[in-house]
């Protein structure tokens, strides 16, 4: 059942992105930045946590979960050590994604030549 929920949730987020791309002059860069902001906005009221319980991995794959993880790590640390925790813990949960993207793109770009 959670697979169906994952399909529906991830599909709907992609459809929202596609509708914005088709009907406005915004580029994919605009759309991804907008969706990250939407993700962190939804987590302000703990709505995104409910999506993750409902759709599992389907809610972690879209870029909206990136904004959710940023604010989630910041607030977790802020609850522990106070106001400065917002800055200390900002990258706590997203560090794996950013680090792996940097490492893989650096080493693969040394190996491969650009196509076209």
């Amino acid at each position, binding site marked *: 059942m*959670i*697979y169906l929920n*994952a*399909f529906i*949730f*991830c*599909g709907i*987020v*992609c*459809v929202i*992105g*596609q*509708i914005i*791309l*088709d*009907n406005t002059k915004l580029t*994919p*860069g605009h*759309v*991804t*930045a907008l*969706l*990250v*902001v939407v993700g*962190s*906005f939804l987590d*302000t009221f703990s709505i995104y946590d409910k999506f993750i319980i409902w*759709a*599992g*991995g*389907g809610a*972690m*794959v*879209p*870029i909206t*979960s*990136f*904004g959710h993880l*940023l*604010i989630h790590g*910041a*607030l977790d640390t802020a609850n522990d050590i106070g*106001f400065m925790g*917002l800055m200390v813990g*900002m990258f706590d949960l997203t560090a*794996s*994604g950013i680090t*792996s*993207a*940097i490492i*893989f*793109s*650096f080493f*693969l*770009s040394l190996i*491969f*030549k*650009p*196509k*076209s």
Partner: protein
Amino acid sequence: MEKNRYKDIVKDHTPKENRLYNTMIAFFVGGLMGVIGQGLVDLYALVFDISTKEASIFMIVTLIFIGCLLTCLGFFDKWVHACKAGLIVPITGFAHSMMSAALEYRKEGLITGIGSNMFKLAGSVIIYGVVSAYTFGIIRYFLLGG
């Protein structure tokens, strides 16, 4: 007068994109990515005997690696052209934007090429994510009590 006519001719000859088809394919491909994500989480949790939270980190790293590798091999650009937002919105789009920037500026050298241009496309995601997360974080910390 001439300019308007030229614009009309251009408008007539621009290929019209089928928006319904685009939306359908974005829904289908995006949904499939979600199912793959959930499948990987379940697989890692079963094989390595770890919690769902740790398995989701493995899943994100795996998807980023696949996105980077397929971009290097040249498949990803064609697939993005065919599947539109279905591949841009998932985390593979983030990996693709970093990888293609790194590949494109490879010839300008390691520091001035890869080093300074890797975040050219993906930087907007990180910057607006951090700015919005900090702003909303302050609001939630002071108004809703963390």
